[in-house]
């Protein structure tokens, strides 16, 4: 063990690592996963109904919406950015998708099976991509701060949602509305489809981040943007792409929620941006950039939902959830800081 060597020429990053720095324990994601298992086990012991099929189906669906957006949000956070506009993007896309679906129901489009709902969903996701594109262009090309840009977009999208709906909830409609419900809120292999979307998207994101050039660039950008630029990485293109993907993940989650609720209320996902960023951060994404991944985002979102559901099953006051989630956020980064602190 060379830890105690006080040789001024030793490199702290090449010496043998202590046990708690070995791969199994070496990331925030790993011990948050451990914490998740521990908390879920505690809830299961003290609230026996936690493991009932109905409850597992409910909770796995509930957390999926946050998890999907947390995947996109994690991409942005890895590049050292932030996207505060995701909650309102969810609402705007959900509302626009349902309105387009209803509007098309009365036209010739209705004659072609599934065309109406397909167009509506494409419209919704297209709008999401457009929102992300504007965020990305302003941040990467005009060099506005991500915080301010997406704060502005948060307000624009929520405002637009209220303008379009006059505050009234919009219900999906049209001839194939049941198909829409099946793809947004049905079951696949016995699992809620929302959960299937999460798993598939997380898998794709994991592979792409690790095994493609684009994935490497995303990390490089968060690690050292200047160095990335000097080595010829097309910084602005990569940046724009992560904001587009983040907004599209929000759009998808908004459409899924509309399918689950059977309605797109104008206050849908109000304040969810904080939950989403919390999920990413609990899962190990570092707001300073360069660190994060899909597994962490999914586990972070799952942890938040298990806390909510667990407290509800224990019969605790509703508002304790926020206190617990806040504590977990701070604990997660605190443990990470203590763990990565170099020995004096």
């Amino acid at each position, binding site marked *: 063990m060379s830890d105690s060597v006080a040789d001024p020429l030793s490199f702290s990053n090449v010496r043998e690592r202590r046990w708690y720095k070995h791969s199994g324990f070496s990331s925030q994601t790993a011990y948050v996963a451990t914490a998740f298992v521990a908390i879920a086990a505690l809830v299961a012991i003290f609230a026996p109904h936690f493991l009932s099929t109905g409850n597992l189906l*409910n909770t796995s669906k509930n957390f999926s919406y946050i998890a999907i957006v947390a995947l996109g949000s994690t991409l942005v956070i890895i590049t050292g950015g932030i996207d505060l506009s995701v909650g309102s993007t969810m609402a705007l896309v959900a509302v626009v998708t349902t309105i387009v679906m209803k509007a098309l129901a009365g036209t010739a489009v209705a004659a072609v099976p599934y065309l109406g709902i397909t167009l509506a969903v494409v419209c919704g996701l297209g709008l999401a991509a457009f929102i992300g594109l504007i965020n990305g262009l302003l941040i990467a090309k005009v060099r506005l701060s991500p915080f301010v840009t997406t704060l502005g977009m948060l307000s624009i999208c929520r405002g637009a949602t*209220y303008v379009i709906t006059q505050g009234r909830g919009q219900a999906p409609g049209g001839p194939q509305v049941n198909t829409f419900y099946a793809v947004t809120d049905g079951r696949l292999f016995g699992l809620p489809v929302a959960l299937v979307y999460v798993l598939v998207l997380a898998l794709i994101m994991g592979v792409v981040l690790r095994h493609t050039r684009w994935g490497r660039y995303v990390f490089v950008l968060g690690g050292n943007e200047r160095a990335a630029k000097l080595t010829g990485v097309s910084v602005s293109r990569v940046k724009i792409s992560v904001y587009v993907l983040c907004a599209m993940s929000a759009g998808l989650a908004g459409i899924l929620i509309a399918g689950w609720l059977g*309605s797109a209320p104008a*206050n849908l996902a109000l304040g969810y941006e904080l939950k989403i960023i919390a999920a990413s951060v609990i899962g190990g994404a570092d707001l300073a950039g360069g660190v994060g991944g899909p597994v962490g985002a999914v586990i972070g979102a799952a942890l938040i939902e298990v806390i909510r559901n667990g407290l*509800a*099953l224990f019969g*605790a006051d509703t508002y304790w959830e926020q206190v617990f989630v806040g504590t977990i956020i701070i604990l997660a980064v605190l443990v990470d800081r203590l763990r990565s602190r170099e020995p004096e």
Partner: protein
Amino acid sequence: MKSLLLAACAAVALMSSAQAAENYKFALIPKGMDNPYFDLSRDGCMEEAKTLGVTCIYKGPATHEPATEVQIMQDFISQGVDGIAISVADADSVIGVIKQARDANIPVITFDADADQSVRQAYVGTDNKEMGRELGRQLIKAHPQPSTFATQSGGPAASNLNDRLAGLYEVLKGAGWTEVKGSPAFCNDDSALAAQQLSDFATANPDIGAIIPIGGWALFAPKAYRNYVDANMDKVKAGKFPLVMPDTLPVELETLRDGYAQVLVGQRPHEMGQKAMQMLLALKKGEKVPVSNVVGLDVVTKDNVGNFLK
């Protein structure tokens, strides 16, 4: 001839008063524009304003939020409207602004949700305690054997909801029902959360006798709400889990029609909107109006749902 002349005079007098009233602009401020319940008040207000020859301006915070509501009321005072009817989001935070309006000689009444500590001149709305009692009575009618229950409210600060809870407790606890742990749940007017909370109650307490929210939040997420009922359909069909729900908005009437609720106890927001205009016009003309104006309740079941759905 004489009577004809009198009638003509009366007609002219009426017309001129209607013409004078035409200049009056009355504001109707809901707690939140995104709450479909207030759409009915708005419709009632607009219709009655047309009849009376006045203008109804409907404007409130985009979503339930006390500070914005106060700001909007201040804007109306600056604009010099002729009267304000407000559904109070937070009873304490409007006391100052209501005084400000009255100091500016603008008549102020509350509708739907009151602030009885303020200097508002009158209130029109539901007797919320009575509504809570009625929900309890309807539940006992459907399930005479005392059992356990859970309830759900929008938030702990709204006095109208707290009155409703008090009425519900009075009747149910008086009849030997016991409340489960964690009740009431607060959903912050978020219908997605509301539907989740109902499912959570059913999961945590498989033998529960009733889950009876005091506001219709979960029903505004119709599909999620129906999933929740479907998961408990065996109990519902066996009569062990009666679904007594508040309010009679169109989406809730459809819920009942399709068998996902047995009884609805509804307020009359449309009538509140109408009465608000009548009362403001009377106050503006210097007439007296009673301080408390209770609008009745509708009890809807399978038998009379057709009359309400129209």
